[in-house]
């Protein structure tokens, strides 16, 4: 802890000394108008992250006095108008008064999204359910890994580190995913287990995160059978910007004396630095991150170091090339299950002292060319190497190499008709003593079109063909069509409906894993594992009766065939098998309210899920029937207060047989409850010298509620962190 405090102090000294170097002061002035060019009286103009500000007069004129020269972001707000942020205002000697136009306030509905059709569309035009989240949440909640943020998105659930959209996945210990997670459209699942290594997501460079709920195999292929999470990265800054964040935190004592296993408090800390700039046509962003977490559990530590580089080069106005490279080095304890409920923070004796070392490298290249005003192309190539090695664990090493290439073309036939088409090839090889050494090959082609019948009616139609060959398994072919309709009944009410088919090929890990799971249970391979298919339907609506309230509701139904799930077989082995039929139905409901413009926002989302294994007439495992997420944000002056609530009803079906004799792999594993987690965040924005600072105090799970997302794994107990960030 002392080292952490020393570190923070040292970092603060460096930052402060830099920022006291400013010298000359002058006034920032300007005029504010509405869209009809009428001056706006009483608008607040504040330099982002500071207390410096002014209000406009009857002529719309404002004057922020005595400001040091530099580059600033301005925030302009007035009741009834959308809050505006103007970035990178160069405030020097020859500064001219600004001229700012505000638009009427409304909840955002016309955000741009690229993941629904692989080209830019407005959210109000698309035919599927979607959510877009901004990067602010990472600062506000001191989030260091993307999956933490996804836990607060309605319709998305995360069990341990496995993400699921609308109940598409239960829990399979890192083997396989049903959500296509991508960075700028390039998937980041590993070639062996097919899992998402969340530490590889460059959250310091996130512009926005687009989430498509529901099958998207017709556009993205096998892993998108449950939905898509696409992380859109930022363009490099036009002026040199350096961002630094540091944080330190501590876990509180557990609720029960039986659970105390360590005399001192468990801590975590991290630091990250990002620099972005542009040299003529070359934009660059690089970052380095260090994160150490002692964890609240024994042998559950995590130490990681990661680096990120993005280069974007504009060859000319019609051509550009982007490179993204990412590196992760991680060492962690191998906490798999608790010893029992009285020793919930201690691993099983057999897992003590086991650790896993891993390193991962990801590189991608995106070349874009605009051939004409109506035709453009994009080529994406990526390589992902994943390597992990279990220390003190028998049969736990794997190295995989995943290569992927995709060519996308976009044709705007006219104002009403757009066609996106593409071809994809990917290949993975695996060397492992856990999944043998299989290879994986896939090739696919797709076409997706959007046609606007009128200003009110928009339609989409898509089809994709995939060929997949997984080592000794017979090659599989899949055709996945999709269609959708969007109907703007009025300015306030927009309907959408879609029908989609999906398919998912088993991953090498699901087919070939052969290992001892402990307690005499073997995970055995299943070379007869078939690929799963789905047929889904959804109907939804966005209703925005007034500018400051938005409702979004959807009903969805997905029927799966050959759904792949891990199961305890009658021979007493764990094996991935095909459930002949499964059905997931549900309702999504979200609402966003601006209670007081610029000051008080509230959002709530509810999801009802009915997930059934049809043949056995049972609930599907690890899927809560009811989930609720809500957040309340209050931002007076330079303060930010936020509270989040996350609720899951008690999961009905789990692997009961693993939790009791004679298997007893997870002692007391049936001990579970509903999930009720409340987080609090308090932030303050201020300026030292010419640089804005943000400081956040975060309390997570503030009521120290004890719950599991997966059996035998107590989720993080109450913890507090203090984070400080600045840019200059």
């Amino acid at each position, binding site marked *: 802890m002392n080292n952490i405090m020393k570190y923070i102090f040292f970092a603060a000294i460096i930052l402060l000394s830099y920022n006291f170097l400013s010298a000359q002061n002058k006034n920032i002035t300007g005029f504010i108008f509405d869209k009809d060019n009428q001056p706006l009286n009483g608008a607040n103009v504040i330099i982002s992250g500071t207390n410096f500000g002014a209000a406009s007069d009857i002529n719309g004129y404002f004057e922020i006095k005595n400001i040091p020269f530099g580059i600033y972001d301005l925030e302009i707000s007035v009741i009834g108008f959308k809050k505006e942020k103007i970035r990178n205002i160069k405030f020097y000697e020859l500064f001219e008064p600004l001229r700012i136009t505000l638009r009427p306030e409304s909840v955002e509905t016309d955000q741009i999204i690229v993941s629904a059709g692989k080209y830019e569309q407005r959210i109000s035009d698309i035919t599927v359910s979607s959510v877009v989240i901004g990067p602010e949440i990472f600062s506000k909640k001191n989030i260091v890994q993307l999956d933490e943020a996804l836990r607060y998105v309605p319709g998305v659930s995360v069990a341990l580190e496995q993400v699921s959209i609308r109940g598409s996945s239960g829990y399979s210990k890192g083997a396989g995913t049903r959500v296509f997670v991508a960075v700028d459209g390039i998937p980041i699942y590993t070639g062996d287990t097919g899992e998402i290594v969340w530490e590889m997501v460059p959250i310091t460079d996130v512009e926005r995160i687009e989430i498509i709920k529901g099958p998207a195999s017709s556009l993205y292929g096998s892993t998108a059978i449950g939905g898509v999470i696409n992380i859109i990265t930022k363009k490099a800054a036009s002026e040199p910007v350096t961002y630094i964040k540091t944080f330190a935190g501590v876990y509180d004592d557990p*609720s*029960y004396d*039986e*659970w105390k296993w360590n005399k001192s408090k468990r801590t975590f800390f991290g630091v990250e630095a990002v620099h972005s700039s542009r040299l003529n046509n070359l934009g660059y962003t690089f970052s380095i991150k260090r994160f150490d977490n002692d964890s609240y559990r024994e042998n559950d530590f995590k130490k990681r170091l990661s680096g990120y580089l993005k280069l974007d080069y504009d060859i000319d106005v019609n051509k550009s090339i982007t490179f993204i490279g990412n590196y992760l080095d991680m060492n962690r304890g191998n906490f798999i299950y608790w010893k*029992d*409920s*009285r020793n*919930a923070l201690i691993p099983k004796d057999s897992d003590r002292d086991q650790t896993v070392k891993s390193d991962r490298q990801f590189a991608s290249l995106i070349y874009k060319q605009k051939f004409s005003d109506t035709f453009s192309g994009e080529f994406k190539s990526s390589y992902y190497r994943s390597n992990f090695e279990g220390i003190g664990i028998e049969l736990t090493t794997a190295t995989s190499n995943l290569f992927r290439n995709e060519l996308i073309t976009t044709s705007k036939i006219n104002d009403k008709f757009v066609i996106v088409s593409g071809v994809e090839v990917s290949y993975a090889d695996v060397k492992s003593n856990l999944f043998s050494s299989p290879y994986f090959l896939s090739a696919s082609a797709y076409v997706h079109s959007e046609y606007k019948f009128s200003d009110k009616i928009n339609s989409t139609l898509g089809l994709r063909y995939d060929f997949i060959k997984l080592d000794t398994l017979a090659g599989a072919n899949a055709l996945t069509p999709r269609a959708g309709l969007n109907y703007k009944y009025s300015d306030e009410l927009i309907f959408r409906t879609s029908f989609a088919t999906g398919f998912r090929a088993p991953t090498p890990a699901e087919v070939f894993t052969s290992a001892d799971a402990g307690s005499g249970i073997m995970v055995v391979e299943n070379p007869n594992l078939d690929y799963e298919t789905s047929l889904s339907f959804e109907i939804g609506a966005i209703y925005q009766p007034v500018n400051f309230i938005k409702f979004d509701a959807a009903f969805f139904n997905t029927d799966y065939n050959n759904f792949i799930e891990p*199961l*305890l*077989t*009658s*021979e*007493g082995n764990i094996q991935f*098998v*095909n*459930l*002949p039929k499964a059905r997931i139905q549900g309702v999504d409901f979200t609402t966003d309210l601006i*209670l*007081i413009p610029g*000051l*008080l926002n*509230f959002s709530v989302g509810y999801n009802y899920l009915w997930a059934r294994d049809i*043949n*056995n007439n049972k609930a599907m495992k690890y899927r809560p029937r009811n989930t609720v997420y809500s957040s*309340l944000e*209050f931002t*007076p*002056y330079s303060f930010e*207060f936020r*509270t989040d*609530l996350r609720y899951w009803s008690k999961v009905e079906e789990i692997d009961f*047989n693993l939790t*009791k*004799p*004679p*298997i007893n792999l997870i002692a*007391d594993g049936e*001990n*579970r*409850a*509903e*999930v*009720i987690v*409340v987080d609090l965040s308090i932030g303050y924005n201020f300026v030292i010298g010419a640089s804005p600072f943000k400081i956040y105090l975060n309390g997570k799970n503030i*009521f*120290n*509620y*004890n*719950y*599991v997302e997966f059996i035998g794994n*107590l989720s993080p107990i109450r913890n507090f962190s203090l984070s400080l960030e600045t840019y200059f």
Partner: protein
Amino acid sequence: MINIYMNRKFNKLIKIFLILIIPFLYSCDKGIEPYPVETGPDITSFEGKVTFVGAWPEGINRTYIVVFSEPSRFDVNTLQYIIGPIPYGVSEFNYNSIENNLGLIPKLAAGEYPYVIVAQSKTPELSLLRQDWTVAGIYFNQGNTALPGILKIEQGKVVSGINITCDFNNPPVQPPSRWKMNYE
């Protein structure tokens, strides 16, 4: 004047914020808890007699009374309790589920169990595979041999009279050699 107005507004907003958050503060219990350490002997059990008719098959290495949670489903997913071993060649065996517990599964919880059998195996090592076992006798309620009897166990009570007859000359219907799961 503006400052006073803003301060009032600010105070009002703080109150709204607190009112909205207070329900959260009182809405939670503590979630899961450590299971209590069991104290004192638990007599929840059942007892009875196994009667063997005819000559024992040769090569039998173990004979157990086995309790399953689903009717006629003999596999590890439904296995609940094992009593034994029953010595080879005996004509009668009186048992109590606690005293004669094999030890593989520490206790049998209160509840209803629709399939209680005597199973025999010839394998040198204990196996959980269905094909390594033969059902020698089934518990029936009061002579009703149409369906296996349901063993009802109440917490803190000893259920008596769970008698099973194993007639080697007239063996009972065998459950599927491999339980056909729906995924198979």
